[in-house]
């Protein structure tokens, strides 16, 4: 804590004290673990590409599953969502809900057409 005193001398409350610093040191350990997991996740994602899943849907599912886990790690630990306030959750939940609505309903609406409708790439019939 060499520059601790210099901050103090400028007349301000120093942000860290020793027990606080210990906490943070604990965090750093976590950060490194997460870092490692993210790299592993990335490698897994790429390997998945070379595995021949029988169906496209399966590929998509696996890809998004890995991505979601990685995203969760980033959000939960790097962005400290784990210990964040309720308010932030509600905002994010709203956004997540509306995003799902936007995507889901748009897709649904684009494919639930009147019976016998045709998506054309050439003229019909």
């Amino acid at each position, binding site marked *: 804590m060499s520059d601790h005193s210099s901050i103090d001398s400028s007349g301000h409350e120093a942000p860290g004290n020793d027990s606080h610093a210990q906490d943070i040191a604990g965090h750093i350990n976590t950060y490194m673990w997460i870092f490692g997991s993210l790299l592993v996740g990335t490698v897994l994602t790429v390997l998945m590409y070379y595995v021949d899943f029988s169906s496209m849907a399966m590929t998509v599912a696996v890809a998004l599953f890995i991505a979601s886990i990685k995203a969760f790690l980033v959000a939960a630990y790097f962005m400290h969502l784990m210990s964040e306030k309720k308010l932030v959750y509600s905002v994010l939940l709203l956004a997540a809900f509306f995003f799902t609505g936007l995507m889901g309903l748009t897709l649904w609406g684009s494919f639930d057409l009147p*019976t016998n409708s045709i998506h054309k790439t050439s003229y019909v019939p």
Partner: protein
Amino acid sequence: MNPLLKLVGMPEPASAHAKGIDDLIVYVHLLMAVLFLGWMLYFFYVMFRFRKGANPKADYIGARSHFSSYAEIGVALVEAVLLIGLAIPLWAKAVDNPPKPEDKPIEMQIMAQQFAWSAHFAGLDGKWGRQDIKFANSANPFGLDTADAAGKDDVSVVSEPFLLPVNRPVVALLSSMDVIHCFKVPSMRVTQDAVPGLSIPVTFTPTKIGDYTITCAQLCGSLHSTMRGAFKVVSEPDYTAWFEKKSKAGGGGGSFE
């Protein structure tokens, strides 16, 4: 036709499903009228009774009755009834119930382009000619392949009135060559967008002989307001005569009037 709708100037209905739509419009407007008149009576009464001159001291609590909750539940109920009883079934019937073959539906294509409507029938052989984008242009909106034998007797009616027989279901496959147009025939109570890249069927059964105008109800460019089409609903024999003549004359496959 419902006298209320006549009063506001809606054109006489001329198709089989029109009654359902008209009824729904009437019922919804009755609901609206009841709500509106009720509230207005209340509104003027309140403004008069509780004006400052008559009631210099306001009451902190105000209304104590729960009438409003009942009214709100009532509105919700009526809406639910209209929705489940009328709107949804009507829609399902219109878009998910294609006419059965024994009703001998007329199948046709309708193509919209800036700024005209064209119609296309399969001809006497009942087979569509081959169609491809690469043949399409303003004069051949359906992209008919002149080389295809099945198309020789197809009937294409480009930018002029076509005929439909009375009391037979029509299934018109609607599409567009360029931008979004909207096929609207007020008397038939049909409206459907013609979306490029999609082919969407509209179904209706004309019930009245006469001349009908198609308007384009979707902004589609400079001359949108003049984009009119027309068709005549005629008796079955008149229609057959017209159709046979057209088909034999080889309307399809490139030679257009």
